[in-house]
């Protein structure tokens, strides 16, 4: 049975179509693996019965040569997507007992395409975090260990930490995530997998618990670039229920993956060369540039002058929107209610107990930056800077086809290491947030190991709605990097 987990998404799809394996076999293998990797805490809810029923239905279709593009493929869903009849927690105490009566558009599309649901993965509470440590359900754990330190548990990154841990630990064939400030790319980088954030508007936000509406975007976490492309095809598409979803046709993201980068211009932004960047990160970046150059790309030095302001801008806009988006969790209609002697007291008790410290911090920050007297100095100014950042990228993409940068300024850190310093934690997002502010697509590709033997990712950024080109560059990088390292825990699996 072991070999079956070795198949990536594309290989498993081909094997299913060829009837070499059944979805029930594949799904059962993953369910067993989920049990075996419980200590990763990757899942909040495992939907074993549902998975087996979906697999059986897929097998019937596959038997007849029918089925969708993802037929029979078992995947995991970040527990931020509402799933009908399955608890949806956003990793928050405040959503205790909440079972949606509806299915998010993205997951509904995946099930329509034939995918099998393994369960709901762990995340930072309401997707607010970069380490998965803010989860009410405890931190998810990175399958990787630093060389010579098998005992120290490392974070898988966040907020889609459970999805990343599941995919990297083979407890899911692939998974959905959401990326508001790097929440797909950073955990993908920390766990040695591929994670892609599509253009804002490419995937519907309908039915995804909102964090920061103008920044949130769903995307795939997978083992390979080709897997990411395949899963993205099942997630993307216009949705009339989301006014911000793009009314554009969805191209075949898997086509042209192998076309290479010959003749493409790759930008290298000087502002990403920040003070104190670890040498190994800088070296990996330089290596990535060389790889693409060797593959025939033209390398162009570019400037994205407002990059230094991206992080503070993000940490104004995201909390502002969050403070409003999270107002609905008031104990009145669903989830946790902690009674009080008055309505105001009930609100305070419910929200005080229901939200964790990081969520409360961001609600406070967001409320502050929107309040009378501070709005102009913070929120309005941040919106202006955001426009400038977007303009930086627009101008850059007049000169280049894609931009290459590191995904994160470090490798995975130990659980608890950054807990006491929120600003240090926020710095994890320094290379990922500019893209969210600009609304653009980006992808993290595993490119090498740090001195501690932990995976490091390189990030490719692309122009609006040009995911196909982005994937093509990412595939070239993937081929050149030939990253084959695996976490020790996978030995013998």
């Amino acid at each position: 049975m072991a070999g079956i987990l070795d198949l990536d998404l594309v290989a498993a799809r081909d094997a299913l179509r060829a009837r070499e394996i059944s979805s029930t076999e594949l799904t059962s293998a993953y369910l067993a693996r989920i049990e075996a990797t419980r200590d990763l805490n990757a899942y909040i809810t495992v939907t074993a019965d549902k998975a087996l029923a979906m697999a059986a239905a897929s097998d019937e279709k596959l038997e007849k040569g029918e089925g969708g593009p993802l037929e029979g493929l078992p995947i995991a869903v970040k527990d931020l997507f509402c799933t009908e009849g399955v608890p949806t927690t956003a990793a928050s105490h405040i959503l205790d007992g909440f079972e949606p009566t509806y299915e998010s558009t993205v997951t509904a599309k995946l099930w329509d395409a034939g995918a099998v649901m393994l369960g709901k993965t762990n995340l930072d509470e309401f997707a607010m975090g970069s380490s998965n440590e803010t989860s009410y359900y405890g931190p998810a754990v990175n399958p990787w260990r630093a060389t010579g330190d098998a005992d120290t548990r490392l974070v898988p990154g966040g907020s889609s930490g459970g999805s990343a841990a599941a995919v990297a630990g083979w407890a899911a064939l692939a998974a959905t995530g959401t990326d508001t400030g790097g929440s797909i790319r950073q955990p993908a980088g920390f766990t040695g997998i591929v994670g892609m954030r599509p253009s804002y508007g490419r995937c519907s936000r309908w039915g995804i618990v909102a964090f920061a509406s103008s920044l949130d975007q769903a995307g795939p976490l997978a083992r390979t670039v080709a897997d990411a492309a395949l899963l993205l095809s099942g997630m993307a598409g216009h949705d009339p229920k989301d006014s911000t979803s793009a009314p554009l046709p969805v191209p075949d993201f898997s086509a042209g993956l192998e076309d290479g980068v010959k003749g493409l211009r790759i930008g290298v932004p000087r502002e990403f060369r920040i003070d104190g960047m670890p040498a190994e990160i800088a070296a990996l970046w330089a290596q990535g540039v060389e790889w693409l150059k060797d593959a025939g790309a033209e390398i162009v030095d570019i400037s994205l002058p407002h990059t230094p302001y991206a992080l503070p801008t993000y940490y104004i806009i995201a909390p502002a929107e969050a403070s409003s988006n999270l107002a609905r969790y008031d104990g009145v209609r669903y989830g946790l209610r902690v009674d009080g002697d008055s309505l105001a007291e009930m609100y305070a008790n419910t929200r005080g107990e229901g939200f964790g410290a990081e969520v409360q911090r961001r609600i406070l920050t967001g409320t502050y930056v929107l309040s009378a007297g501070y709005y102009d100095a913070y929120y309005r100014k941040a919106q202006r800077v955001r426009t400038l950042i977007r303009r930086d990228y627009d101008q850059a993409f007049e000169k280049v086809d894609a931009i290459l940068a590191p995904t994160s300024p470090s490798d995975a850190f130990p659980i608890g290491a950054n807990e006491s310093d929120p600003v240090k934690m926020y710095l994890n997002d320094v290379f990922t947030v500019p893209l969210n502010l600009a609304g653009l697509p980006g992808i993290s590709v595993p490119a090498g190991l740090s001195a501690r033997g932990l995976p490091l990712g390189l990030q490719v950024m692309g122009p609006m709605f040009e995911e196909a080109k982005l994937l093509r560059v990412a595939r070239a990088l993937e081929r050149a990097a030939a990253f084959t390292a695996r976490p020790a825990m996978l030995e013998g699996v």
Partner: protein
Amino acid sequence: MAEQDSAQAYRIQGETGAWEVVIGLEVHAQVVSKSKLFSGASTTFGAEPNAQVSLVDAAMPGMLPVINRQCVEQAVRTGLALEARINEVSVFDRKNYFYADLPQGYQISQFQQPIVGEGVVHLDLEDGRTRAVGIERLHLEQDAGKSLHDQHPSKSYIDLNRSGVALMEIVSKPDLRSPEETAAYIRKLRSILRYIGTCDGNMQEGSMRCDVNVSVRKPGDGLGTRCEIKNVNSIRFVQQAIEYEARRQIEILESGGSIDQETRLFDANRGETRSMRSKEEAHDYRYFPDPDLLPLVLDPARIAELKAALPELPDARKARFASEYGLSLYDAATLTEERATADWYEVVVKGGGGRRDPKIAANWVTSELFGALNKAGLDLADSPVSADALGGLMDLLGDGTISGRIAKDVFAEMFETGKDAATIVEEKGLRQVSDTGAIEAIVDAVLAENQDKVAEYRGGKDKLFGFFVGQTMKRSGGKANPGMVNELLKAKLAG
């Protein structure tokens, strides 16, 4: 000019002299639409509590608003009817505050960039003149749900049927100067909204609600500090609230105090306003553009289409009634305030092959019909006398079949029984007598019975002529043609 104005102007006499009242209105008008502003749930009034609530209205996690085209077009039509600037780009903002009947924790509204800009409402004054009241803006927003505080001793119940229903907030400039003028403004605004069918104007059901801003000043001074009286739900209460509030402010100012800018409530039972919250306690709504919605962009061609398709509006119809039917501006205004009344009137006037006198028709409608409806507590829609039936009565009057006096009796009978005029005249034998011989016989009999009075009349007591007319009409059962009675009496008494 100024003297004439001030002679007519509404003033409140205080101990230190006359005060002027300055009033501005924020009217919340529920948009006539099948579904809510951002969800597909129905908007029908009177459904079971929480029967018309979508996942969006209940603010379930992950739900997103999608703008309802019909509500947008209703707002545009209203803007056009208010002669206002339509903003081709407008933006929805979130107004953040916590309340149990506000499931999202914010109301989606328009703050900086409303869909409609400055416009105007023309008030109809008693003397037929008009006065322009400026409209500051009109924006679209969601209504909240309803808290029911009387269902349980210690708990409040929440009904979300109204949650998310589209409202137009129509903000006037501080151009109103008296309770009467304010009442006229609300009536005119309601008239316009009902003409174009964008709001049913029903204040009792809450589909039109007013926030009233009141301040006072000495004539000629700058604007005083205002208080906002929230959610007043009838025209009468608006007038009462203004009067009370103006007097309250004058008393404070005259005793050396100053007005605190605050939000107040009108207590209809006591006829007074009470402080709700002061400026210091005012909510900080933390408005910001709703990131779930793109800016609303209107197609100028569609705006032009909507404009072309607007029905004739009250002001235009009033002018036409005055010129086409020769009515006074006052009568024309009365008849055109409600579209249904104007339609009704025009059915009367246009029937009967153009022989019906529009002025007489106007009198019948405004005095007899409205009087009877008022007395019976009925609306025009429920009138037992149809427009065609009233026209029939006018025709009988016009061709001399019945006299004016009989016509009023016939009308009363029509109103009571719903029968048409011809039937009643036939059944009751009310046809006017215009036969000279028959009338002469009656006149002769009256004169014969009252020879003493005949002598007095002939001796110079002219006033007795009316007596003879009365006696003759009485004896004819009111049916004698009054003109012929006059002529015959004059001739015979002279003889």
